[in-house]
């Protein structure tokens, strides 16, 4: 589904990813764990085409083609989605209007007819209910004044509406209480499918109790240094990142 080959990337001249290789399989949940500053967020930003990240070498192949020359919106239209660690507040932009614009851009890209306001609201109502979100949230400004939990639920709402193929969850569990965490995890599990790939970036194993990963990758100093199954989480919980040093 998505293959990262020998990727080197920097932010403001500082080298962060240093020859990273990673293959994300279709229908699988990949979790990336790693200490602070190892490059987890830079990796997700590189995949979605964030303006801060400069790729200096290597490639990212998606559906058989390099995406490095594609703009962020083009990558999104092709089905790459990142849930932000800190979703951006956009005062004055109505949440529903924003989401309908995004959905219709995707539908147009896929050659489908656009949804009018009534059709879209009908779709939204169902999703809001499933996520336990208040109905008035769609009429508020995008993320403006939202609590941490509301912002994360709003990210999942966008994910459910846009139905992407590759979903990057960048510390989706940060700042969530247990109820919010469950609601977010349920949303994620709802759209799991054999056609969809997840990349879960996290510091803690808690979210992985709810979203069962197929693979765990440990990222350290800009490279994937270890890959394993869910058992790797238990080892990390018990001993921390020194397990990497022990084996290498």
């Amino acid at each position, binding site marked *: 589904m998505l293959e990262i080959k020998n990727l080197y990337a920097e932010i403001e001249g500082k080298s962060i990813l240093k020859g990273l290789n990673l293959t994300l399989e279709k229908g699988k949940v990949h979790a990336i764990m790693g200490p602070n500053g190892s490059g987890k967020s830079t990796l997700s930003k590189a995949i979605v085409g964030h303006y801060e990240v400069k790729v200096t070498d290597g490639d990212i192949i998606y559906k058989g083609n390099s995406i490095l020359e594609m703009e962020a919106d083009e990558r999104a239209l092709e089905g790459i989605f990142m849930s932000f660690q800190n979703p951006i507040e956009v005062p*004055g932009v109505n949440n529903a209007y924003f989401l309908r614009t995004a959905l219709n851009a995707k539908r147009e890209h896929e050659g489908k007819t656009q949804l009018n306001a009534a059709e879209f609201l009908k779709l939204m109502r169902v999703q809001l209910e499933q996520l336990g979100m208040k109905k008035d949230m769609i009429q508020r400004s995008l993320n403006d004044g939202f609590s941490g939990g509301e912002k994360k639920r709003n990210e999942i709402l966008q994910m459910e509406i846009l139905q992407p193929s590759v979903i990057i969850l960048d510390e989706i569990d940060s700042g969530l209480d247990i109820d919010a965490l469950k609601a977010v995890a349920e949303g994620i599990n709802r759209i799991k499918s054999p056609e969809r790939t997840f990349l879960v970036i996290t510091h803690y194993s808690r979210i992985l109790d709810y979203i069962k990963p197929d693979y765990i990758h440990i990222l350290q100093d800009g490279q994937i240094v270890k890959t394993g199954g869910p058992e790797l989480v238990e080892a990390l919980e018990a001993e921390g990142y020194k397990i990497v040093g022990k084996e290498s």
Partner: protein
Amino acid sequence: MKTLSKGTLVDLLKSYRTETRQTDALEHFDTLGLPGNKTEQYRHFSIKPILAKSYTIANIPNVTPQSGEYIEIVDGVVVRVPDSITLTIETAPQFDDSHFDALYYAGHAASETCIAITVTNDVKIKIHHRITQSEALLTYRIALNVEKNVHAQVYETFENSSQAEGSLVLYGYDINVNAYATLQWIRNQSIEDKHNVLLGSHQITVADNAAMKLRTYDFGAGSALHLYKIDLQEHADLQSTHLVYATSHAARGNVLHISHRGRYSKSVQEAKYIINDHATGIFDGLIKIEHDAKFSSTRQNSKAMLLSAHGGARMYAKPQLEIYTDELEASHGSSTGQLDEKQIFYLRSRGISIIEAKKMLILAFAHELMEYVEDEIIIQEIETAFDVAHNSASKEK
């Protein structure tokens, strides 16, 4: 009668001097002097070449207005009036003797007549200005008197005929909002490139317990400057909001001198400017709390967004407070910024194109000031004018 067929504004005033017309207005004009590039309120407007230019001096024909749905003024002549509106043409209109703007007096001196509108009952009035002449100097004044206890709305629109270019329109209002009356004045002004320069010099008095809502929407690639002297009496309430979207090489702006003269008078002023391409935005707002205006309150804020990626856009913001009493509430602020890169990226990361993302953010910035208008039809017209200005601006990435 005007005898001059072509000349500058000063030439026209000189010809009137020999006719001993409007000598009081001319004296005030002489005292303040012809505005130049160093005159504070015109410093960033490049007034000198505009006033140095020789124009065709338009003769104001005698026209009997027809009945219509709104007031239509073509090149300074009223051609249409609703039957319900009391409109007269006066030959010696009153003017304020302490206005800060020389062109206020030039406009009075150069206008042979004044369009006088008296509002005696609650009403919504539309005034449509149409400019059809090219390279012409068009001067006219409008006196608007809203009588006691009356609640009125004036919606002002502008139209330039496609062939009309290079004219200078020097117009303005003298407005009295009498005690316990309210006036909402909404101006929707779109001027495209190569059209005419418009200078509006206004005087407004808001009497005891009266309220004035001034909502202005200035969009496009042509240049215009509005200068207001506003006096607030006891318990008078002013809400003044200004949305400007200037494109191409336009200079667009508002200069306001607001004087709190009476106790418990209140003013709220909000200005938002969107400046694109090589345009210039001007916001010069002076709020004066006079000695007798105890317990008054004022709030002033201007925000500007510069859109030009190559630094061609300019904003000159000058919010000022002059306070001559101790007991009051006052605040003011000003900020100039650009579109937020993080917000643009967030929208783009959901598949929204950069052009659409920028438009969403620009609209979000502007929308608050559009929402003040309650009339749905007027909002739609303002939004359409905003879209036209936005679509005509360059789409730099």
